[in-house]
């Protein structure tokens, strides 16, 4: 038997937001966003398997302004989750758990995610421009 009204711990909302907690919840949010983003991956593969007309529709949808906006968001979510996931794997091995190291790796991870996102888009536009 469970009591639905029992207090739940921890009371997150009484804490002042910190880099560590913000990066942590963002890891979860980017993970959920990426799960939704898999719809696009499957749609793209199915369109390519279906035929040229379906593929051209997919290309137009993904290449539209809204499509590119979603793709940009997903690419950042992907690089964020990837970089922070590697950070998690180091914690799992017992490395970098001291507070100064947590803050350092947090900023480095964030910078890497932003840099990888921008580099991908610059490279993508360079490829498209050279075609």
């Amino acid at each position: 038997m469970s009591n639905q009204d029992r207090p739940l711990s921890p009371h997150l909302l009484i804490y002042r937001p910190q880099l560590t907690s913000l990066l942590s919840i963002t890891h979860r949010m980017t993970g959920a966003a990426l799960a939704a983003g898999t719809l696009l991956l499957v749609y793209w593969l199915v369109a390519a398997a279906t035929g040229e007309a379906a593929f051209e529709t997919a290309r137009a949808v993904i290449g539209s302004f809204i499509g590119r906006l979603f793709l940009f968001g997903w690419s950042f979510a992907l690089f964020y989750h990837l970089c922070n996931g590697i950070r998690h794997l180091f914690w799992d091995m017992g490395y970098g758990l001291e507070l100064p190291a947590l803050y350092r790796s947090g900023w480095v991870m964030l910078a890497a995610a932003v840099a990888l996102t921008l580099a991908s888009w610059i490279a993508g536009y360079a490829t498209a421009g050279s075609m």
Partner: protein
Amino acid sequence: MSMRSPLGRVRGLGSARDGVGHWWAERMTAIALIPLVLWFVASVVTMTGADYATVRAWIASPVVAGLLVLLVVMTFTHGALGLQVIVEDYVHHEGAKLAALLAVKAFALLLGLTGVLAVLTILFGG
């Protein structure tokens, strides 16, 4: 002193009796996804704006098709494990939790299978 290994002691524990298995599977799929995701993003970036024939020819290579199948399987396994934790953390009503967990597993299976079959269709359809 116990003669059991630390892993042997924790296996089978947790509220669902398989907490370590879940934790381990999430890490293994995460490690597999690091090179797969980097390869996929690099490939897609170099194919920005590529036409139908180019993309079909790329997927139709056995190496690429194999890596894509691995990417899809690892992505949906890792995603389902992650979404399961989110559901278990925030949905406290037993009935709603069960329904949400079933929906997560069903969608992951359905979408993952569809993705794999799309890749195989291109591989074997030329």
